[in-house]
């Protein structure tokens, strides 16, 4: 059985982590935790880490002992510089807390890229965890709504840059902006995005831990995540019963099912497909044939088949060779930073001019 650690950092990370815990209860609503026990597909440890105690308090399905407050009340206010300092100050505490949970084969770090705490802690955590554990580390980075403002964009830009520099095994993107379509208001959009992300993550964990026919394993994951720029995302498709397994597999590559906008056929580097369902829906020959076809376009495609009661479901996980959306994001981030800089300088100049008026003057009483 795989030992997996899931860290949710900052408000966004905490909330997605809480969704994972909620899903582990079967997703049965608020009261499930009072009558049922969590069931993870592997040995999963979760820790919610935050500088804002209120964010931790808002969680519902995460054990209190799995919520770790980094003593710096009320967050770092989206200030990554401050966030890094707080991390440095509390590094031992944080690592000690993680260490209590034993050793791990795979670590997921979930964070938003736009906030202060999560986005600054995540790269540092990758660095520390790599040093401390011989485990694969996959980051799940949540991109902001583009209208959130220049600080969000700037944080995202630096966060992703720093994450890549720390070389985790991979980065999976979840784009709030792209997934806004899930719901009209932000709150329900968040909930929906969190639940979707949580389910896909658990699906992935289940597949990695499974000892079934044609399984995928950590090695496959590592290879997939190594492809392209090391950044990817996840897609998902559930067939209604009329579909062939081929249609279901192809469905999981459709942009509408992805967590981040990409064209798998043009930009995909490597992929992993996890196919789950009742045996009668899983035509192995067809699966193999479909994957062969896909490989010619997407490159290396790993597959895992999980026989489990239910309609056929496919989770696709892939890395990308190029990420136009990220390029656009960096471009706008750069514009935002420059604009910010110019505005600052202008404001400063204005203030300097104003002060110049009273230069060499003394107050007279």
């Amino acid at each position, binding site marked *: 059985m795989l030992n997996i650690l899931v860290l949710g950092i900052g408000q966004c990370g905490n909330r997605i982590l809480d969704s994972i815990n909620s899903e582990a209860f079967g997703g049965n609503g608020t009261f499930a*935790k*009072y009558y049922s026990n969590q069931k993870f597909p592997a040995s999963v440890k979760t820790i919610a880490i935050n500088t804002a105690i209120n964010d*931790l*308090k808002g*969680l*519902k*399905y*995460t*054990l*209190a*002992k799995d*919520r770790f407050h980094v003593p710096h009340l009320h967050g770092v206010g989206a200030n990554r510089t401050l966030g890094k300092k707080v991390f440095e100050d509390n590094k031992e505490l944080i690592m000690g807390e993680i260490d209590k949970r034993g050793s791990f084969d795979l670590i997921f770090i979930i964070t938003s890229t736009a906030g202060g705490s999560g986005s600054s802690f995540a790269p540092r955590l990758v660095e520390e965890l790599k040093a401390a554990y011989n485990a694969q580390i996959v980051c799940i980075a949540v991109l902001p709504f583009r209208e959130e403002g220049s600080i969000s964009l700037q944080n995202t830009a630096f966060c992703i840059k720093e994450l890549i520099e720390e070389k985790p095994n991979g980065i999976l993107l979840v784009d709030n902006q792209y997934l806004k379509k899930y719901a009209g208001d932000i709150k329900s959009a968040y909930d929906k995005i969190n639940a979707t992300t949580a389910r896909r993550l658990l699906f992935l964990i289940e597949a990695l831990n499974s000892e079934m026919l044609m399984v995928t394993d950590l090695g496959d994951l590592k290879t997939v995540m190594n492809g392209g720029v090391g950044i990817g995302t996840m897609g998902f498709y559930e067939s209604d019963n009329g579909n062939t397994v081929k249609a279901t597999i192809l469905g999981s590559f459709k942009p509408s099912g992805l967590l981040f906008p990409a064209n798998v056929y043009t930009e995909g580097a490597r992929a992993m497909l996890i196919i789950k369902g009742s045996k009668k829906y899983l035509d192995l020959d067809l699966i193999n044939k479909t994957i062969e076809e896909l490989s010619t376009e997407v490159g290396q495609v790993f597959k895992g088949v999980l026989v489990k009661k239910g309609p056929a479901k496919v989770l696709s996980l892939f890395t990308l060779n190029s990420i136009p959306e990220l390029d656009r994001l960096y471009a706008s981030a750069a514009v935002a930073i420059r604009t910010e800089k110019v505005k600052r300088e202008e404001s400063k100049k204005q203030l300097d001019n104003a002060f110049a008026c009273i230069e060499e003057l003394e107050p007279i009483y």
Partner: protein
Amino acid sequence: MNGVRILVIATFFVFVLMTPVVVASGNDSYYIFDNELQVNEGITIETSIHIEVVEVKRIPLERAKFRITSYQRPERMITVFKEDGPQANRYETYSGASIYLDVIGVYSDSVQFRVSGPSNWRVTDYYDVDPEEGGGEVDEAVTVPKLKITRTLDISSVQQGQTAKVTFKIKNDGNGTASEIELDEPTIKGAYREGCPTTLDDIAAGATERVSYDLKIVDVEPGTYELNPTLLNYKSESGTSYSSESSSNVLVIVAEEVLAPELEIKLTIESDDDVIICGERFSVTVRIDNTGNATTGRITVKSHLPDDVRVAGGEIDPVYESIKPGDYEEYEVTMIAYEPGKHVIKMDVLWADEEASASAEFWAERSGFDKYYIYILAAIPIVLILLWLIKRRREYSF
């Protein structure tokens, strides 16, 4: 209206009763005697009735004591008070005719008195009484028998249907043999004499004779009766008649007592406030008393228990061969009641063709534990769930 009638009746009676006197007072010739006599002087009326003045007293009340003797009648002492009126002092003679004494005046040693009676009766003799003799006619020449009769009853109270034994003790205190002794024993209506002699053998001077008979009370209502004096008439050897009488006796007749056993059964439940605990033993004491006056025959006890009451120890329906009057049998049974609520235990005791019952009531309550057992049982999972919820809540609250 009633008043008037009573008055008329009363007047009529007075008139009838007073008739001889009224007649006598209306005409002097009806007084047999109307004169003064000295103490120890006597008169004889119609040769057979003797009236002697025994003593006179003026203090505290004027009175005179007379001795009256007559044929076939015992000697009688009569004290007559002045102004008592003749009616108060009647003396009935053997023939059934009565005479009446009336004291007119009392002097130091004489008395003026009147004797009234049948108009044709006359004083036939005046005589002096020898103080030594003390009674009767002076008959110095011959021996005189003098019988004294005492009558006793073996019981003073006799039941209807039973018999009282009447005994006469007759003693001859005289100096001559009493012969031709006739015993005139009165009786009570409804009672019969068995073996009561009417004549007795001669009794020599100084001898004592005992005679007894059974007085069978057959059809007499319960009550207190006076048995009138027994009259003895006898003669001396010379043929002179004498009589004496016993004192009267009182006999109480009580209702006939029926001999029958009578049983009473009593149940006693040992408990506080007649409340017992379901499932716990309690004892019931059954006591059967023979309150009757006869020994019973075979006795059986039959119990009637509520459905949920069981006998846990002891014989609940014993059989006894007999119980003597005033005696009792007692036994204890241990029982258990299983259901809460009011219970009635009934027991019948049966003997001959009769039966008596008793019942006892008690409340059965669930024990403290039993009462709350169900709640405790129900509470355990609730408490466990609550503890679980609290634990979970604490685990998930930060």
